């Protein structure tokens, strides 16, 4: 234990101790505490004693099942179709709320697909969690290229030696400095369906051909709107990271490329991009991890959104743990989130490892 780090650095350790102990108290301890809480039925507010319930929270959250529905048939055995020609099926609640199928009690329909005449219905015991999971993954999937790619574009633009380029760098970086809550409030007004700025601009640009869309009130556009806004906000931050990477590429390589007569695209592909490898890995991992923590935008703008279309994992954690006082349920979601992020980061690290 008497390595160089500890031996000659006693003063350093003493100085770091307050910081470390706070980090330990507020991040490390709750981290392990969450694992413990997820195995109990702890409530935020309750005179009842806490009980250890094992994996029941995980079961309640993650149970899914597939039900096969036979179409309604007439006396003669023909399939009944409704006015639109769609096959009519019995309601799922006749199965999930009947005494014949106790294993489906408390489950709700998540989605269904048709195979032939029968419908396969996937029921889940916690549909809101499933939707939150899918939404979070979708958010991460779209925001990585959008934000990372957009940031790269901006970095390439401001990497030129033009006069006043620093002003542009400041302008592009400004959204990062403003609190995400303030930005969410502002964009809520911009996205407003009645007199929102976005609708007005699009209407003006298309000379009135564009009819106003309720961006945040429509299940199709709500998540996309939040993705676009989040990408815009954090782009400046990653632009600076890309910029650092760009400026670390040796200018002699660029000179060599221009001597060889490479086009702009070829320069980018063969000189810039390989030099940005490490930066790209960093940006990718950071954006992915940050995107899983999306909360403030949802909380301020849509509250989970029209029909759960903007539900996210962290939002559900807070809603459940604090709003509905089920702190063990919230802890369970956060443990699942942690495992997911760990897995994805490990996969990313593996895929982007140095191959020598």
């Amino acid at each position, binding site marked *: 234990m008497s390595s160089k780090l500890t031996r000659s650095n006693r003063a350093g350790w003493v100085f770091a101790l307050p910081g470390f102990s706070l980090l330990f108290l507020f991040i490390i301890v709750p981290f392990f505490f969450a694992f413990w809480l997820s195995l109990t*039925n702890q*409530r*935020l*507010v*309750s*005179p*009842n004693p806490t009980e250890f319930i094992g994996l029941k929270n995980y079961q*309640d959250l993650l149970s899914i099942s597939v039900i096969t529905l036979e179409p309604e048939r007439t006396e003669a055995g023909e399939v009944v179709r409704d006015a639109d020609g769609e096959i009519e099926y019995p*309601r*799922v*609640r006749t199965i*999930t*709320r009947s005494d014949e199928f106790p294993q489906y009690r*408390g489950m*709700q*329909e998540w989605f269904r697909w048709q195979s032939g005449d029968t419908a396969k219905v996937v029921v889940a015991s916690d*549909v809101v969690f499933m939707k939150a999971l899918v939404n979070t993954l979708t958010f991460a999937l779209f925001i990585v290229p959008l934000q990372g790619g957009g940031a790269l574009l901006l970095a390439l633009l401001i990497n030129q030696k033009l006069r006043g380029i620093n002003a542009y760098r400041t302008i592009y970086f400004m959204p990062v400095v403003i609190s995400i809550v303030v930005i969410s409030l502002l964009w809520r007004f911009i996205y*407003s*369906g*009645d007199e929102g700025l976005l609708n007005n601009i699009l209407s003006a640009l298309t000379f009135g051909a564009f009819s106003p869309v*309720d961006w*945040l*009130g429509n*299940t199709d556009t709500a998540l996309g709107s939040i993705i676009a806004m989040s990408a815009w906000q954090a782009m400046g931050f990653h632009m600076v990271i890309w910029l650092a990477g760009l400026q670390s590429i040796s200018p002699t390589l660029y000179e060599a490329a221009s001597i060889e007569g490479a086009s702009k695209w070829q320069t980018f592909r063969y000189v810039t991009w390989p030099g940005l490898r490490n930066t790209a890995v960093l940006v990718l991992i950071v954006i992915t991890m940050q995107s899983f923590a999306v909360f403030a935008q949802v909380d301020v703008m849509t*509250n*989970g959104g*029209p*029909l*759960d279309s903007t539900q996210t994992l962290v939002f559900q954690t807070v*809603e459940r743990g*604090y*709003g*509905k*006082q*089920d702190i063990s349920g919230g802890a369970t979601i956060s443990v699942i989130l942690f495992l997911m992020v760990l897995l994805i980061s490990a996969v990313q690290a593996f895929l982007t490892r140095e191959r020598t």
Partner: protein
Amino acid sequence: MTLTKTTLGALAASTILAGAAAAQTELSLWYHGAGNEVESNILNTVIDDFNAAQSDWTVAVESFPQQSYNDSVVASALAGNLPCILDVDGPVMPNWAWAGYLQPLPISQEAIDGHLDSTIGRWDGEIYSVGLWDAAVALYTRASTMDALGLRTPTLEEPWTREEFMAALDAAKASGNYDYALDLGTAWTGEWYPYAYSPFLQSFGGDIVDRSTYDTAEGALNGDAAIEFGEWWQSLFVDGYAPGTSQDPADRDTGFIEGKYAFSWNGNWAAATTLDGVDDVVFLPAPDFGNGPIIGAGSWQFGVSSACEHPEGAAAFVEHALQDKYLAAFSDGIGLIPATKDAAQMTEKYADGGPLAVFFGLSEEQSLVRPVSPGYVVAAKVFEKALSDIANGADVADTLDAAVDEINDDIETNQGYGH
């Protein structure tokens, strides 16, 4: 020597003064009205009068914004930092009492004699909180609108039936003069949803939970009456009678005054502003959807926390605040219903013949408190989400089933919530 004598004299004097001040025990009071100048001023007057009128207790108030008040109290309870007297929203009180944040309020029976029933907060056979006012909801409209659309004016004894109400909305929609016929206030997320909309459900014959046992919502929230309510609720949005869940909060505040909406379902705390902005506003009672016309009840009440060592001081403060003159002052200031008839006579709006006098009767006869259960905190959030989803087009029966399942699970996890 002179210096020492002066110093000793000063010391003695300050000790006596300090001793006198120490005889007054300080009681901390938390209130939810930060940002509301009128309310804060009246409350400060009540507190100053109380502090001056007796020498045992001094009340010191700390105000919080309403949106974060409940969270702040829960957080401070977990930290062991509760004040002595606190303000609690009527339907939340059972949850805080069950959780051990509140202790019973030792208030005398004379002090609450003649008060509206919904202003007394009872749980488990004890009184935990008493309120200075009650709130009611009414259908705001203009007398000119009623004339123009040729509608019968409903009264307390003869409210609109469901058919009459829908016919009124149809007429408003057909006239083309309004953005929407009915402003329900869907922009106000939070406690407004259960407070304002569960009376509709109750008027249809359903309820948030089964009040006979409080241990299930099955049949109450997903029975036939509730499904009928859900389908009617969905039709309001699908058929374009009311703006949806993405209504602009600004429209909610001023839309009726500006003439965007023909009818507005709003609380009587907005009455003062509306009376200023609209000349001929009338306040109609709730429609009767089959089970009698019902409006919500139960507003903010004062209670004493379990951490307080002087509940008798808290009770003394509350009794002082319950004097008719203060009830009338609050009512004039924020437009809510005063807790006693005598106080009502002292106000501008609720005295006999005043513009809002009808609400006193409404509150007495048609109001129904939200379910009195510690489980209400969760049930309210579940109900709000269910109504939001139905308004956005989700399947009515499935959404109500999911809500029932969630409420029942929560009741079971909490071992019945002490019922």
